[in-house]
């Protein structure tokens, strides 16, 4: 079994994390069982931790834990890699570890329990950022819409969501991952549209919904606007061999040869809101 050494990101920059994830998974074949070697990791961010957790669950891959006690303790606390799928356990964990929210494993067949778990996760995220008028809705919008997409479009039965607030750096990182069919296959299978991965991402951003119906096709674009424009954050979406990176002023679309994520990874960073936020202009 191939061993993949997971390295520390060079800085806490979200794009550095994206690159670290790319370098971790580049060259890995579809559903290849691997061992992730976390031995030398000192700190890991949601954008790297969560896709690795998802990959381990899907392919039954293995991992070697960090030799750093703090990092090992952190991974144990957040229940890496399988996460928590019950509201009782989440609630207990939230009481004992107030600064660390565990990985939430949202299961399609759990219906109501899944919704309540998502609510608990979202409430913890809001609490971590403090109370700023209007910020709640701006934070809840992308979480709700992007998780909904997993169960409506990905055909995956499991969605993972994880977030971490960094009080000294004053930002919140959230990552949402599925290992489903990805955007390209969703367009091919549901709408008979044959496109490349980067074209599929572009279609999603343009609002071409995978499912028919009025008022569909807003989720990703409006979420990106909430994160980048309303909250001044950064937003990254990966599907297949392509990625979209956006900040308040710049947007990039890139292809990643020899890399393939079966499903969708969305990761974003929100700086702690300092002033009142009005989401109305972003609700198209």
């Amino acid at each position: 079994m191939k061993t993949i050494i997971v390295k520390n990101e060079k800085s806490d920059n979200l794009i550095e994390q994206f690159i670290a994830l790319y370098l971790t998974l580049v060259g890995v074949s579809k559903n290849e069982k691997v061992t992730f070697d976390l031995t030398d990791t000192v700190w890991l961010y949601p954008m790297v931790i969560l896709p690795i957790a998802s990959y381990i669950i899907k392919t039954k891959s293995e991992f070697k834990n960090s030799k750093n006690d703090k990092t090992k303790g952190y991974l144990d606390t957040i229940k890496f890699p399988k996460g928590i799928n019950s509201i009782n356990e989440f609630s207990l964990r939230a009481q004992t570890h107030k600064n660390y929210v565990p990985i939430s494993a949202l299961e399609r067949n759990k219906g109501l329990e899944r919704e309540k778990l998502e609510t608990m996760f979202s409430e913890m995220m809001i609490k971590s950022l403090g109370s700023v008028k209007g910020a709640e809705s701006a934070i809840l919008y992308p979480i709700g819409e992007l998780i909904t997409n997993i169960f409506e479009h990905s055909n995956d039965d499991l969605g993972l969501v994880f977030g971490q607030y960094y009080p000294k750096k004053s930002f919140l990182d959230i990552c949402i991952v599925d290992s489903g069919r990805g955007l390209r296959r969703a367009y091919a299978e549901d709408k008979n549209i044959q496109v490349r991965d980067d074209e599929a991402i572009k279609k999603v951003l343009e609002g071409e919904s995978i499912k028919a119906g009025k008022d569909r096709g807003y989720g990703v674009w409006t979420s990106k606007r909430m994160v980048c424009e309303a909250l001044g954050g950064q937003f990254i979406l990966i599907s297949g061999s392509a990625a979209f990176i956006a900040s308040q002023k710049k947007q990039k679309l890139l292809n990643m040869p020899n890399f393939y994520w079966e499903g969708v990874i969305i990761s974003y960073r929100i700086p702690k809101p300092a002033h009142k936020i009005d989401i109305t202009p972003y609700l198209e």
Partner: protein
Amino acid sequence: MTKNEKNSLLIATEIAKIVSSRDLVRSLKNKITRMKTKEVKLDFSDVEFVSRSAVHEFLSLRNQLQKKSWKKKNIEFTNTNESVKEMFRTVAANIAIPKNKRLLEKIEKIDIQTLIKKTSNS
């Protein structure tokens, strides 16, 4: 069934304080159909947020139940907070007059190796 009145359903209890999923909104259909009264209130007290997709589903549900010839129901959404109200208004307006497909501007195309070089130099 959780009711705070005979003709009303508390959404925070029936689903959650934050409502995201379409499927859970859809699952209310049977409960509403079984209610004896024709006028049904969906009570959003304590609901903090409803996603765009869930709002769309609530509106579709109301539309479906109002059109039924048998066991027809008139649905009213009550006790919505400001953000929930705003979401309902936005989605309803967009169902009535959908926006055109948006054109994306200013997306830079870049390959991963260039991004890695740029990032390591900055």
